């Protein structure tokens, strides 16, 4: 049978993963933000200048994203939600907000005024402005969430490629280790790892890697198993390419597409995980604002209708970010099916 042969324009996923400008913009956004969150305190009061290039980069990235996603309204909504928080994260120091850590007026309800200050979303039990905490609170979860997911992907993809492409003993060993890790419920794994390493952003990265990499490895392994039967891999083999070359140059670029969808979903999971772990006291530590922490702190002070805003604000904020990731994944998947 003749295969239907319609050379199409670049697919949405291709457009999305067309590397150069997106990667450059992403790094422009990401590196300053990460540096700010990780080292901001050490750098001192001028740390916020770090974020200056990140703001336009975020906006530009958003524009590129909207263009790439224009076929899917769902994806654009998701993208908008995610970029809203990204924009908040990179511009938080420049926004006219109160100090998120400074106690001003405890238990001020939303839309109330106290001491000449207006609190849109009220204040928490320590009297810190909720609006400000909510906006600042996205920084850590975004930075650690995305970093953790990226690291998990690097590790997972590496092992997945090795396992899928080299097969044999490599596959047996890697798959067994992955099975061991996958046999733990994620939360058990998180608890054990973070309990052992101690709670911190960096250790979350480690824990997420342990928890997510096996699943990613499986996906990549599956893709690699598929791709390695393609003729172009065969061609590379028959011209005597080193397996490493084949894995990196022939396989890796082609697993990128399906993985992007998965990555969006996984970003959502990681965000959930970080928030949940922080709520359980195993994740990010005070004092800097974080949604999980806000919930953790409010869960014991605000169990009353009157104060429920303290719980609702972070809960809705984190839900909106995850919704953003999920909608993006959904839209992307839909687009990739249509292409």
């Amino acid at each position, binding site marked *: 049978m003749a295969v239907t042969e319609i050379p199409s324009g670049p697919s949405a996923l291709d457009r999305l993963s067309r590397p150069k400008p997106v990667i450059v913009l992403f790094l422009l956004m990401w590196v300053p933000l990460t540096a700010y969150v990780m080292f901001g305190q050490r750098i001192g009061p001028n740390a916020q200048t770090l974020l200056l290039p990140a703001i336009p980069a975020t906006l530009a990235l958003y524009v590129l994203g909207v263009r790439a996603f224009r076929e899917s309204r769902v994806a654009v909504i998701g993208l908008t939600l995610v970029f809203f928080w990204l924009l908040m994260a990179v511009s938080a120091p420049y926004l006219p907000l109160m100090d998120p850590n400074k106690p001003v007026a405890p238990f001020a309800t939303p839309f109330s005024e106290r001491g000449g200050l207006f609190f849109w979303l009220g204040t928490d039990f320590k009297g810190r402005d909720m609006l400000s905490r909510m906006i600042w609170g996205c920084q850590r979860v975004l930075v650690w969430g995305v970093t953790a997911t990226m690291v998990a992907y690097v590790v997972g993809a590496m092992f997945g490629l090795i396992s899928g492409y080299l097969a044999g003993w490599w596959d047996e060993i890697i798959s067994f280790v992955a099975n061991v890790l996958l046999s733990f419920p994620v939360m058990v794994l998180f608890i054990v790892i973070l309990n052992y390493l101690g709670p911190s952003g960096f250790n979350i990265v480690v824990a997420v890697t342990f928890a997510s990499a096996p699943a990613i490895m499986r996906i990549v392994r599956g893709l690699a198993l598929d791709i390695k039967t393609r*003729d172009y891999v065969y061609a590379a083999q*028959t011209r*005597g390419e080193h397996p490493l070359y084949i894995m990196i*140059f022939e396989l890796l*670029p*082609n697993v990128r597409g399906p993985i992007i969808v998965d990555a969006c979903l996984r970003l959502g999971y990681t965000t959930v995980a970080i928030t949940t772990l922080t709520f359980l006291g195993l994740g990010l530590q005070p004092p800097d604002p974080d949604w999980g922490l806000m919930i953790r702190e409010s869960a014991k002070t605000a169990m009353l209708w009157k104060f429920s805003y303290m719980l609702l604000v972070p809960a809705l904020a984190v839900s909106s970010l995850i919704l953003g990731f999920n909608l993006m994944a959904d839209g992307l998947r839909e687009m990739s099916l249509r292409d």
Partner: protein
Amino acid sequence: MSDHAAEQVPVLECRNLCISYYTRAGEIPAVVDFNLKLMPGEAHGIVGESGCGKSTVALAIMQYMGKNGAIVGGEILFEGRDMRQMSEEELRQIRGSRIAMVYQEPMASLNPSMTIGDQLVEVPIYHDGLSEQEALARAEEMLAKVRLPDPKRILASYPHQISGGQQQRVVIAMALLSNPRLLLLDEPTTALDVTVEAGIVDLINEIAEEFGTSMIYISHNLGLILETCDRLTVMYSGEAVEVGDIHDVFEEMRHPYTRGLFGSIPLPGADKNAHPLVAIPGQLPLPHERPEGCNFGPRCTFFRDGLCNVGRLPMHAVPGDDDHKVRCERFQEIDWDRDLPKGEAKPPVEAGGTVLSVEDMTKHYLIEDGGLFVRGGERVVKANEKLSFTAREAETVAIVGESGCGKSTFAKVLMGLEDATDGKVMLGNVELGDLPVERRNAETISKLQMVFQNPFDTLNPSHSVGSQIARVIRKFGVASKDEEVEEIVFRLLDTVKLPRDFARRKPRQLSGGQKQRVGIARAFAGNPKVVIADEPVSALDVSVQAAVTELLMDIQRQNRTTMLFISHDLSVVRYLADRVVVMYLGRIMEQGTTEDIFAPPYHPYTEALLAAVPIADTRIEKRHIVLKGEIPSPTNPPKGCPFSTRCPYMMPGTCDVELPPLRSFGGGHRILCHLDPAELTAMEPVIKPKTEAAERL
């Protein structure tokens, strides 16, 4: 039969049918102005390349367009009633009982989680109100009619438990259960092996006779249509371009496209040197990029501005034959003999010394049951058994065989991806059999390259065309400086007749034929001594196939490359090969020069294979040989002669017990068979020209 046509109501009539798909790019017309009149008992073929809209027509007749397709104009009259006016319930009653359909992929069209019996009885139960018992009885009867052995067992089986050919018979039985007036066959044999295909075609022909069912037979294969149909419609890019009685069209085709189509398929008369194939230039337009006027205009040699590209072209009846219609403005002006481009005759190439010799090459796989902890039994898959042949410089050796014959394994061993279990493979004076590709040096590797089957897989979608060719050049040390490499890349693109700016393109921006050209360029980048071409054109449209085939051979000719051409299609092989190796279940059954293979003595398998290949030539007469059964699994080959289970000449006690001897018939023509050489020599040719009288019957 046309005598009665006037009085009879046509079973089906399509009038000015227009079908569109709605996508995010807007409305895309799939079929435009389609007309068809099918009389009772008639078999009508629809032929065309992929994307021409032939399957769409079939689904439109069933009124099953999916959620984004719609009939936007015209009428479909079934026994005089417009199906477009029917209610869902009326349609339901007609579907499956009055109109039935047979599909391309039998496995996919059967429900995997229901027994075949359950799926069959539904038809009489829902259409004829039969009880389960009666329905079952009828189903069993029908299975017997489609020549399925042991219908009872099959009724209780799940689809995956029977072979592809059997599945297709089941689907046909299902279609026939309610004795339909109209049977739609949408490429019913495409997914099957040639020898199995022959059996199905045979069955379809018998059914037409026995049941008197009208049929619409959809295929891309002109030979198949010739074997099954009375009339035919040739479609191109959503339009019927030529309609008529099958003999009229085959013998006096009037449309330039039909003519081009016939010019690009290797008919028995074709010869790669004397009468090379002529490809249709250009490629199929995309549905939303069709030109004004004649859709074929941009590819047509007879295109005339102002005539062919104005307005919508109507169908014209061929003078003297009202049934024969053509959608061409100039069909009466064209002098085919004068104006049709002909392939230039090329001098034959003298083969040189032996380049590749394979001696008793054997490849066995061990399959282990169980796994990490539980050791299971080991089974041996004999993928290749004692293959021996040689290939000389500038020679084309075809390796012919159906699925599971071990041709891919052989290629893998040759390329160094697998070790031979036994035997020798010599390239020049390098032993390759136990030299995996990692241990081969660049020179050896570059001497042996491959052109792959699937154009969509042959190029890495992530890298540009140029960089993929350049990698080979660097890897094989042909050049290393950037400018030099670039120069070579450009030269190679020139060689495969692609524009130089394609170097910067990504594979997805290329059509299948173009990709295959790049694949060829890549294979030849290292100046190989031997090129293995694994069905390089089978996935391409007919009109493109010719061009790629010709290109491949031109380059081979220039470089004096030895080519191992792997194929299942004997017509192609006959056209281009110098010598042929016929394989079956891992063994070479017969080998010899092309002339030897296509003339008696034949190996019984070669004979059947020859008979099974449909030939789109009315001047040819073919002997009718239909093999029974299916190709056995290579994991469990028959004892004795591998072909013994299906061989019409099978001698019980000999063939199924003992491995046959290799009989030599001189000139390298060797046959692996128990039959007496005299008996073999006495075989009649399978293909021979019809006598003039027979033709004009």
